[in-house]
């Protein structure tokens, strides 16, 4: 379905697209040079779409189907090191299979972009969403960002490459999207013109680190205790600098696209009905739909609740989120992931939110945790209402002894 082009020079047209299709349009507009692929649901749709775009003559890129994710990620990494803008992706267990390559892509400080169509890890077999796949690279020097609409997914391909490739950053970028709910659901998506994208996203330039016959360098020699500390420190500094670069990128993005419809007030997260709220839920990805509807319904009844939709997970927006969540009495963290054996045996997001709030000590909100939607199980509006009510109660001081509760679990 196509609607008439908007009369601006920023948007080319508006199309009915799935999340995966939106990403493939963006890959085309970002003028990606090398794509390596290996099928696994739900990511597969992107690679299928991209091969069609190439066959139709719409995208000029090298495209190879690797024999596994491990080789796929290595191909993407090496393409990136010779100065090609490279794209890869996977889901669930496929992402985990390529882990060795994912780790070195970060330590080699290369900036390809990967789509992670979030999927539960086997066993048992499950196609539905869970966030542990993308989160598994959280400690390795990756940028990790979640889109929660197809429009955001498209736009974050541009934002992602821009931040990742910036010479102050040069870190690989995982753009994550909830499997099924986002990868395969259709939305109306505004697709920008090539000119607008070019204005926002400069060409990829790896500078003096590019592998080229004219620039003889070697990558990843054996350095042991002589240099590893210093190299880790460089990663650390890059991850720190990324925060500023991200802010700059959104400012620029708003400048190019903002007056025409896509505007981000805050790069890191979006607040919904949080003004004057007593309690908020915070979550990642497609769960923003039922949580926002539930917030509206509760507001109609006079309950002061709101929702915080976290977009950037690495780098973690520590100060911004502390300032935001510090305003409320109760915070309920929704985890569509798990961290077995962690403090409180809760989710991964819980750990980060609590340590981010720790400096507030007694002045901070009471934090509780909800584990839900695992393996792709739906999180209903009623369940969201229940979570808000429990978070309101926690905000009033009724913090349960066991702060982690499971939502929608069959007894």
């Amino acid at each position, binding site marked *: 379905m196509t609607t008439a082009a908007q009369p601006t020079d920023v948007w080319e047209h508006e199309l009915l697209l799935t999340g995966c299709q939106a990403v493939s349009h963006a890959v085309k507009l970002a003028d990606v040079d090398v794509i390596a*692929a*290996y099928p696994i649901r739900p990511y*597969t749709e992107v*690679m*299928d779409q991209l*091969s069609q775009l190439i*066959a139709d003559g719409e995208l000029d890129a090298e495209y190879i189907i690797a*024999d*596994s994710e491990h080789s796929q990620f290595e191909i993407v990494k090496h393409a990136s090191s010779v100065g090609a803008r490279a794209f890869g992706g996977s889901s669930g267990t496929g992402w985990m299979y390529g882990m060795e390559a994912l780790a070195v892509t970060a330590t080699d400080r290369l900036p390809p972009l990967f789509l992670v169509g979030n999927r539960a890890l086997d066993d048992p077999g499950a196609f539905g969403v869970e966030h542990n796949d993308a989160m598994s690279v959280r400690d390795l020097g990756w940028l990790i960002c979640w889109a929660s609409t197809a429009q955001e997914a498209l736009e974050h391909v541009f934002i992602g490459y821009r931040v990742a490739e910036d010479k102050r950053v040069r870190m690989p970028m995982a753009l994550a999207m909830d499997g099924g709910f986002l990868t395969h659901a259709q939305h109306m998506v505004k697709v920008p013109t090539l000119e607008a994208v070019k204005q926002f996203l400069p060409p990829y330039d790896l500078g003096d680190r590019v592998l080229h016959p004219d620039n003889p360098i070697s990558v990843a020699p054996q350095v042991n205790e002589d240099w590893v500390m210093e190299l880790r420190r460089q990663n650390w500094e890059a991850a720190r600098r990324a925060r500023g670069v991200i802010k700059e990128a959104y400012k620029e993005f708003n400048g190019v696209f903002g007056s025409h419809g896509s505007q981000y007030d805050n790069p890191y997260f979006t607040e919904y009905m949080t003004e004057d709220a007593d309690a908020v839920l915070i979550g990642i990805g497609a769960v923003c739909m039922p949580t926002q509807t539930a917030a509206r319904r509760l507001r109609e009844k006079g309950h002061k609740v709101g929702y915080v939709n976290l977009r950037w997970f690495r780098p973690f927006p520590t100060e911004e989120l502390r300032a935001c969540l510090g305003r409320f009495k109760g915070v309920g963290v929704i985890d569509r992931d798990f961290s077995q054996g962690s403090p409180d045996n809760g989710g991964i997001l819980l750990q980060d939110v609590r340590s981010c709030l720790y400096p507030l000590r007694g002045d901070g909100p009471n934090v509780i945790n909800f584990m839900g939607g695992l393996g792709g199980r739906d999180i209903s509006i009623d369940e969201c209402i229940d979570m808000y009510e429990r978070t309101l109660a926690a905000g009033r001081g009724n913090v349960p002894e066991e702060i982690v509760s499971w939502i929608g679990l069959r007894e």
Partner: protein
Amino acid sequence: MASPVLVAKDYKPEVPSDWCPGCGDFGVLTALFQACADLQIQPHDLLVVSGIGCSSNLPGFIRSYGVHSIHGRALPFATGSKLANGAMTVVVTGGDGDGYGIGLNHFIQAMRRNINVTYIVMNNEIYGLTTGQVSPTSEPGMKTKTTPLGNLEGMLNPLALALASGCGYIARGFSGQPKHLVQLYKDGIQHPGFALIDVFSPCVTFNKHNSYTWFRERVYKLEEEDHEVGNFHAAMDKALEWGDRIPIGLVYRNPKPPPPLDVTDPALTGEPLVHQSYEIDGDTRRELIQEFA
């Protein structure tokens, strides 16, 4: 009391198989029921292991021990099982993507080590479960979802690779001819060492090129020609034959098969590991204490 005689339907579980109507994998499974019945393999003495793929769902559709492992890793799992319990009949099943793509390394290593398992590959020349992408056995020029203008890459030849890797039993079947398959399976299961049976098993949903008709027009049985199954070079010639005529049947059987790993490994001689006693006798214990005293 002697066990009652087993017939093919004794291996059919209540769980229905989930393949598309017309999928070649049905023929592969039915032939396996018959081969197991002919050999009177008790379901509790049979382990069927797979990776991930439509074809790899097979262990769920046969009454035996079954493991649906991870993509490409059926053979390592089977290796461990066979080493732990050499008395079990271990049949490994999977697809071309699973075994000749992501798991290719294990395929070669298992043949080199001569693990005593029977490996049945449902070769539909496509990734079926992920809905129709090019596979390592897709023909050059073939149009798939990921190769809309035709496959640019060459085909992997599993039979030639198996010959070069020291496999002692190499056969090819066609799921459109399940009776013929039964014999290939039975000989493969009885072969002492790694046995490969590559089976043309059409994916009617995503591979419109290699259909039943396509295969029927091309395959011929080696048993009907005077092919020398014990001759390595004659076998290589047959392994390389592809085009208007494609051979099926027994391609190679090593006339002097070397003993499989579960026979040559000193720790496994005698009884299977699971049947060996955990106890150590007094003399050995005393020797050990002295050694570490």
